[in-house]
C-alpha cells in the first residue's frame, strides 16, 4: 500500500515516509532503547508494524481526523511511534514538555483541546489526572509504563500495549479506514504542533505542516550529508522542535537510527555505548562535560596532568586548522597524531564522541573556549541558528567555515533580511503555518509575503555572509545617555566563566548597568572543596566572601573586555549581587528551555534591583520558591551588593 501514498514528488507525509522506509530499509535498525541493560532495537519494518497497531487501536478508541493527541514523557521509541500513529489516523500530535507542572500542562492541553493523552509513566498520568477537571475535551489517556498504575481506575485509562493489541485484533475492521485517512495526507496537512517555551507570556502552539517537516529534513540532511547508517541519541525534550526534526523528520528522511537512553541518569553511559555519529547538545551540556573533565584532570597524577596540558596546548594550536582542512606543517601534524593516540582519542571515547561526524550546538551562545576545546580534539562541532517557527533551521555553519562568534550561513532554501532596527527576518519552506487559535500573533510574526520576524537583532558579516546575532531585538535598548544596551551580550560573556551559571543584566533606560549572578554549584563547590571551605547550602556558598571576590574579578574582566567595544562600552556592570537561589523554570524565572524571563525576574526581585541602584551595601529579601512537587515555600537572605571596577570609556568622557 505504501506506493499509493507517494506522489511523483516523493513521500508527502510522515506516515508515507515511514512506509517507504519499511520497504526500503526494512531490516535496518530504526529505533533502539536501552532497557533491562540491553539495547533493544526495532527495524523500520517492525516500527511500521508497531505504529500501525497503535493507529488501529486509536481508531478502535474512536480517534477522529483533526483530533489533537498530546504526548508526554521522556524520549522513548513508543512515544515517537505515538506521534507517527497520531498522524496516521489524521490527528495532530502535540508533544509536551515532560517536566512541566500540572498547571502548565492544563493550559496547553486545554488550548489545543486534546481528546487523547499518551503518557510515559505514572508521574505524567498523575499530572493529567490532577487537572482533568479543567479540561473540557479530554477523554482518554494511554500510558506506556504500567508501573504503579495497576490500581488506577481504568474507565478512561489504557495501557499502550493493550491498545496496540486491540488494534491488531481489529485490523480487518479498520485497515481500510486507516489507509484512506493516510491517503488524504499531503504536504499541506498538519504534521505536528509544538508549543513554544514562551519567553514572554503564555506558550503558543506552532503548527507545522508535512511540507515544513519534510522539506526541512530533506535540505538539512543534504547540507550535512547525513547517511542512512548514522546514529543519534535522543535525549532532549520531545516537545522541542529540534528533537522532533532530528528524531522524527531527519530520521525518517534519511532512515538513520534513533537511540533512546535508559533513563535520564544513565544518559552519559548510554552516549558512550552508542557513540552517535550525529550529535546535538545545547552549550550547557558541552560546558558540563568540559567542567567534569577538567575537575577529574585535577585529580590525575602529575605526569598525566602534564601530558594532558602539553597535548591540549598543541591541539588548541593546530587542531581546528586540521579539522578545517587547512595546511599545517608536517611536524605539527605528527605531534597531533601522537596526541590523538595518547590523549585526544581516549578523551573523545570517554566523552562518547569518538564517532561524531556532525555535531551541533544551538539555543544559546557557546563560550569560545568551550567551542574551541571540542573542535581542537577533532570533533566537528558547529553552530546553528533556528527556531520553532522555522522548523529549526535558519542558518548553520558549513564544514570548514566554523567559528565561535557566528551562527553560519543561510541553510538551503532560506532567505534572510535585516530590518532597519537590526531585527533578523527569514523566509523558507520551513516557515510555520500559523500559531494555533492565535491569528493576531501569527500576523505579528509572519507577514503576507512569508517573512518571519525572529525577534533577534543581528547583522550579516561582510565578505563571509555569516550571520551574527547580538541579542533579542526587544531586549536591546538604550541607556539613559543614549548608548546601546544589549544585556544578552554581557550575560553571555559572564556565563563563559565556569563559576557563573546564569546572569541577568539590567540597565535599560538607566545610567549604569547592574547584574544578578548565579554561581555554578558544581564548579564553585569543587573549588570550595579543594580549598577546605565548608558550606551547608547553595545559599551559604553563594555569599561566601571569597566566592564574591572571585565573581567580582570575573565581572571586572568582562568589563575590561566590553570597554574595548566601542558600541557597547556603556554596558559595563557597575554593581552586582550573587543571588541566594538558582533561577528556576519551576519558579517561572526561566523558560523550560532555560532562557531568562526578564520581566518575571524584574518584578519578583524588585527590591534587589532597587538596592542595586540606590547605593546600599546590602539588601534583605524573602523569595517564594516552588518545589518540584508543586509545594511552595520561601527563603530569606541578606545579599551583599558589590561594586565592580569599570574601565575608562573615552566616548563617554568626551560627552560629559
Amino acid at each position, binding site marked *: 500500500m505504501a506506493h499509493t501514498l507517494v506522489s511523483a514528488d516523493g513521500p508527502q507525509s510522515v506516515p508515507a515516509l515511514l512506509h517507504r522506509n519499511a520497504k526500503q530499509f526494512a531490516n535496518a535498525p530504526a529505533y533502539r532503547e536501552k532497557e*533491562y*541493560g*540491553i539495547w533493544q532495537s526495532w527495524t523500520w519494518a517492525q516500527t511500521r508494524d508497531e505504529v500501525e497497531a497503535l493507529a488501529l487501536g486509536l481508531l478502535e478508541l474512536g480517534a477522529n481526523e483533526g483530533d489533537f493527541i498530546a504526548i508526554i514523557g521522556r524520549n522513548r521509541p513508543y512515544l515517537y511511534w505515538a506521534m507517527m500513529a497520531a498522524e496516521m489516523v489524521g490527528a495532530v500530535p502535540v508533544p509536551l514538555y515532560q517536566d512541566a507542572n500540572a498547571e502548565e500542562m492544563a493550559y496547553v492541553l486545554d488550548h489545543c483541546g486534546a481528546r487523547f493523552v499518551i503518557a510515559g509513566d505514572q508521574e505524567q498520568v498523575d499530572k493529567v489526572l490532577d487537572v482533568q477537571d479543567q479540561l473540557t475535551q479530554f477523554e482518554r489517556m494511554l500510558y506506556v509504563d504500567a*508501573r504503579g498504575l495497576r490500581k488506577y481506575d481504568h474507565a478512561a485509562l489504557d495501557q499502550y500495549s493493550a491498545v496496540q493489541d486491540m488494534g491488531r485484533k481489529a485490523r480487518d475492521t479498520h485497515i481500510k479506514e486507516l489507509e484512506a485517512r493516510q491517503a488524504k495526507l499531503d504536504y499541506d496537512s498538519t504534521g505536528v504542533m509544538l508549543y513554544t517555551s514562551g519567553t514572554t507570556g503564555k506558550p503558543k502552539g506552532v503548527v507545522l505542516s508535512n511540507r515544513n517537516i519534510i522539506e526541512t529534513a530533506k535540505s538539512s540532511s543534504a547540507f550535512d550529508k547525513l547517511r542512512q547508517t548514522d546514529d543519534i541519541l535522543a535525549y532532549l525534550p520531545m516537545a522541542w522542535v529540534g528533537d522532533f526534526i532530528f528524531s522524527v523528520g531527519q530520521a525518517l528522511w534519511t532512515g538513520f537510527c534513533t537511540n533512546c537512553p535508559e*533513563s535520564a541518569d*544513565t544518559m552519559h553511559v548510554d552516549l558512550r555505548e552508542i557513540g552517535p555519529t550525529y550529535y546535538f547538545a545545547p552549550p550547557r551540556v558541552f560546558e558540563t562535560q568540559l567542567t567534569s573533565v577538567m575537575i577529574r584532570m585535577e585529580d590525575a597524577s602529575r605526569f598525566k596532568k602534564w601530558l594532558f596540558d602539553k597535548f591540549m596546548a598543541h591541539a588548541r594550536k593546530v587542531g581546528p586548522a586540521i579539522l578545517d582542512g587547512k595546511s599545517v606543517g608536517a611536524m605539527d601534524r605528527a605531534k597531533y597524531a601522537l596526541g590523538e593516540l595518547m590523549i585526544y582519542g581516549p578523551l573523545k571515547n570517554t566523552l562518547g564522541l569518538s564517532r561524531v561526524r556532525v555535531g551541533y550546538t544551538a539555543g544559546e551562545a557557546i563560550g569560545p573556549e568551550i567551542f574551541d576545546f571540542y573542535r581542537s580534539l577533532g570533533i566537528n562541532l558547529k553552530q546553528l541558528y533556528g527556531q520553532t517557527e522555522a522548523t529549526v533551521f535558519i542558518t548553520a555553519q558549513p564544514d570548514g567555515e566554523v567559528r565561535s562568534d557566528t551562527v553560519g550561513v543561510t541553510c538551503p532554501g532560506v532567505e534572510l533580511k535585516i530590518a532597519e532596527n537590526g531585527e533578523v527576518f527569514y523566509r523558507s519552506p520551513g516557515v510555520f503555518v500559523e500559531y494555533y487559535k492565535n491569528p493576531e500573533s501569527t500576523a505579528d510574526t509572519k507577514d503576507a509575503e512569508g517573512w518571519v520576524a525572529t525577534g533577534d537583532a543581528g547583522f550579516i558579516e561582510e565578505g563571509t555572509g555569516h550571520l551574527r546575532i547580538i541579542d533579542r531585538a526587544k531586549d536591546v535598548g538604550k541607556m539613559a545617555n543614549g548608548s546601546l544596551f544589549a544585556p544578552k551580550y554581557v550575560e553571555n560573556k559572564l556565563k563563559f566563566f565556569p563559576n557563573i551559571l546564569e546572569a541577568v543584566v539590567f540597565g535599560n533606560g538607566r545610567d549604569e548597568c547592574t547584574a544578578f549572578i548565579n554561581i555554578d554549584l558544581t564548579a564553585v563547590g569543587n573549588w570550595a572543596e579543594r580549598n577546605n571551605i565548608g558550606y551547608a547550602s547553595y545559599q551559604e556558598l553563594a555569599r561566601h566572601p571569597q566566592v564574591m571576590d572571585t565573581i567580582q574579578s570575573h565581572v571586572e574582566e568582562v568589563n575590561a573586555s566590553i570597554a574595548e567595544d566601542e558600541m557597547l562600552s556603556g554596558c559595563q556592570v557597575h554593581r552586582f549581587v550573587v543571588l541566594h537561589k538558582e533561577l528556576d523554570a519551576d519558579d517561572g524565572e526561566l523558560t523550560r528551555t532555560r532562557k531568562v524571563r526578564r520581566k518575571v525576574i524584574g518584578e519578583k526581585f524588585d527590591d534587589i534591583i532597587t538596592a542595586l541602584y540606590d547605593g546600599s551595601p546590602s539588601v534583605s529579601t524573602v523569595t517564594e520558591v516552588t518545589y518540584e512537587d508543586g509545594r511552595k515555600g520561601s527563603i530569606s537572605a541578606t545579599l551583599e551588593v558589590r561594586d565592580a571596577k569599570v574601565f575608562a570609556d573615552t566616548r563617554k568622557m568626551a560627552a560629559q
Partner: protein
Amino acid sequence: MKDMTDGYVTADGRQIGPVVMEMKNITLRFGGVEAIKDISFDIRQGEIRAIIGPNGAGKSSMLNVISGFYVPQEGEVWYKGSRRPAMKPFEVAQQGIARTFQNIALFEGMSVLDNVMTGRLTNMKTGMFWQSIWKGKAEREETANREVAEKIIDFLEIQAIRKTPVSRLSYGLKKRVELARALAAEPSILLLDEPMAGMNVEEKEDMSRFILDVNDEFGTTIALIEHDMGVVMDLSDRVVVMDYGKKIGDGTPSEVRNNQDVIDAYLGVAHD
C-alpha cells in the same frame, strides 16, 4: 476483628489472601534471657505486616525466627499449611523467604549487578561442573537470571549504578541494592529489617514508595520491622506490637494506635 478466614480487603482496596505463615506460641531463650515469650501471630498472603516495639523488644529475634536463623525452644512455625521443621537459613531461603539486614550486608567490592545476581543463587540448578564449562544449560540459566536481575534493577531505578561497586554508594542506595538482592530471589515472603533506619526524609519516602510498589507489582507478602512509627502506620496493613519479648498488641494501624498497652509501652506509664 472481623472474620478473615479467607482473607480480607484493605482500606485501599487490595485483596489479602489466606494465612501463609503462622507463629504459634513461640518462645526463644538465650541462656536465662527470654527474648521472645509465647508469641503467636500470622502473616497473610499479599499483606504488609509490621512488627514494631521499643528497643530490645525482641523484634529482630522474631525476624530471625521467621528466617530460620534462630530455632525457638518452644512453639511452632507453620508455613504454607504445614509445620516447618528446624531448618538452616539457606533451606528457608529456598522455600521462598528472602530478607534484608539492618546493618547492610552486601559484598562491598562487587558491582551492584553482581550483588543482585547473588540473590539468584538459591534459584540456580546447574552445579559447579556445568558452571565451569560454561556452555549449554549453565549459560542459559545465567541469561535467565540476568533477565530477572535487570528487571529488578529497572524496577528499583538503579540502572545508573548497575556497574558501580557497592562500596562507592551512599547509605540510602545501599539499602535499595539490598532490597534488590532480596527481590532477585523472587520471594513469596520478603523480610525487611529496619529498611528505613538512618535515612533522611526523602530517602524514607522513596523506600516507602518502593515497598508499596513491590507489594503491588509482584504481590509479594512483606513482613517488616521498623522504628519509625509514622512510616509503619502509613505502610502496613496489620501491625504486631512487642514489648519486653511479649506481644502487647495486634491489629490494623488504627486499632494499635488506640491500644492502651501500646501507648504505655511507647510513652511510658506513671509509677506511684
